[in-house]
């Protein structure tokens, strides 16, 4: 038996680790485009801020691959997959046969189609190379514009602010973190960063990016012009694009595999083609709260999916219990915040409990539907996030707890016998 895994991040590494624990004999081959051991993308902002060195980003010890007897083909690009012959075709035309294949190719930065948003000084922040390029470009830069007020954008903004740059975040919607948090939570987090000195422009998209003319360049002004929808003009030497992601599905586009925004998989992480599995940011799974199928590009879900894929690849049927697609934890400066599940309910079906004390950076919001907890936002005090999360995941009837659930000391003690 030969397992081939394409991708060497959360999903790929966890899959390899579980496969080896279940199957000591079979061959495991990992193929990845980047020629470095597995590292944490989530730590790239720490690297940007200068708090971590490259080696500190690695998520496994240096002998992980050797100890687990995993063959690595790193620095290799997969061209396509031949699902009939069950072979992976590399760009150098080498063919690698597989019995079971895992697609864990992740995603790439999405660049919105804005004229001029390309070339020198414009970067995504997705991999180590991006981070290194940003650092190089920042060496002589003063002003930085971050396009997108989501997690990646804000993390990048704060990291570069810490290095001493002037940072402006431009977000098209009217609040930061629009996908995870509601307005109140976003305001607390924004105020926290604003107080530090990061500038925000909300409700404005970017119309165009213009390169400096010959004249300005001659006089040493390298900054590009960033023109907003209302005509406002910003200058920046470095522009970071954090406007979302696009799943890396190119390598299977000719296989006949069902592809939507990503690769939809069933509960066993199987794609529409036998013996090919997908996990991580490239896979589309069903969210247990909303029931909707979609990408859930966050680290814990990728890791969990990689594990489930491995069990099934090794022949042990194990279903993905489903995860909460939308969940995230942040702490940009000093206010921690966690969002889980449905945080901005619309309609009468939901009951919202909330406690909002902005001057203390405290906010707790619980979203209840049919006596079940379906979403929450915690800002300031996050210590019980996992406990609330257990209610969301288990879909337990919360009516016995309703009168206590908003208490600041609500904890496991209330649920234990």
């Amino acid at each position, binding site marked *: 038996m030969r397992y081939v895994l394409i991708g060497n991040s959360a999903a790929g590494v966890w899959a390899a680790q579980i496969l080896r624990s279940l199957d000591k004999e079979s061959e495991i081959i990992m193929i990845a485009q980047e020629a470095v051991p597995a590292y944490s993308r989530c730590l790239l902002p720490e690297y940007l801020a200068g708090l971590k060195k490259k080696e500190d980003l690695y*998520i496994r010890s240096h002998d992980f691959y050797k100890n687990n007897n995993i063959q690595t083909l790193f620095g290799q690009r997969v061209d396509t997959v031949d699902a009939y012959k069950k072979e992976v075709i590399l760009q150098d035309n080498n063919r690698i046969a597989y019995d079971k294949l895992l697609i864990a190719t992740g995603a790439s930065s999405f660049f919105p189609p804005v004229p001029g948003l390309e070339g020198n000084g414009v970067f995504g922040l997705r991999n180590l190379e991006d981070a290194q390029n940003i650092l190089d470009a920042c060496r002589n830069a003063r002003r930085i514009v971050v396009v997108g007020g989501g997690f990646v954008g804000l993390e990048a903004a704060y990291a570069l602010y810490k290095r001493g740059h002037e940072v402006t975040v431009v977000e098209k919607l009217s609040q930061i973190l629009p996908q995870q948090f509601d307005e109140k939570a976003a305001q607390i987090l924004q105020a926290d960063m604003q107080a530090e000195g990061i500038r925000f422009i909300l409700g404005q998209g970017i119309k165009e990016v213009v390169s400096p003319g010959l004249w300005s360049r001659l006089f040493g002004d390298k900054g590009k012009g960033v023109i907003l929808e209302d005509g406002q003009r910003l200058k920046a030497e470095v522009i970071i694009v954090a406007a979302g992601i696009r799943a890396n599905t190119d390598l299977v586009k000719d296989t006949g595999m069902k592809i939507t925004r990503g690769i939809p998989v069933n509960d066993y992480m199987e794609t529409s083609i036998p013996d090919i599995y997908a996990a991580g940011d490239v896979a589309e799974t069903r969210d247990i709260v909303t029931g909707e199928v979609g990408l859930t590009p966050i*680290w814990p879900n990728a890791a*969990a999916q990689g594990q489930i894929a491995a069990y099934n690849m090794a022949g042990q049927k194990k279903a993905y219990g489903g995860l909460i697609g939308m969940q995230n*934890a942040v702490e940009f400066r000093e206010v921690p915040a966690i969002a889980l599940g449905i945080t901005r309910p619309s309609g009468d079906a939901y009951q919202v409990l909330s406690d909002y004390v902005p001057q203390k950076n405290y906010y707790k919001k619980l979203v209840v539907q049919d006596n079940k907890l379906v979403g929450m936002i915690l800002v300031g005090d996050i210590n019980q996030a*996992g406990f609330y999360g257990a*209610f969301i995941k288990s879909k337990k009837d919360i009516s016995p707890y309703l009168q206590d659930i908003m208490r600041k000391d609500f904890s*496991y*003690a209330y649920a234990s016998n």
Partner: protein
Amino acid sequence: MRQIMIDVHRCNGCLTCTLACASAHSLSQSIVGAMQEKTPSRIQVLSAKGKVVPLMCRHCEEPACVVACMSGAMKKDSKTGVVTNEGTGQSCVGCWMCIMACPYGAIKQHPTEKTALKCDRCSHREVPACVEACHEKALSFVEVNEYANKREKKAAASLVDEQG
């Protein structure tokens, strides 16, 4: 493999375990020293409606915190079964993914450092300090099989068993 087991009914909420825990994790290895060093306790004594519940990491079979950890710091030792984010080769950065993942709420933010704080089952000691200090025998350090399928599993799993 030995585990710390909790008998909630015996706990009277004296908090001695929290002092013993802080002491055992302080440089000075003393209660007064721990207070001076501001060493936090890793065991919590939670209360609800007049009843008290001591809680520390359960060192789960399939720990959600380990899967959620994005720096690779949180690991489960295959020999001892201990789940910890300290001394595992990678360092904790305080992203709070583990706090978000732990169904018991047994992981906290460290009060002074940007790291997650949790029970390491006193890896440096024969018997965990909280167990040694508990006068009421609400905490015990026993082979899991002796006890596991009895009350502890029942109590601990009442909320979380549905999620596997």
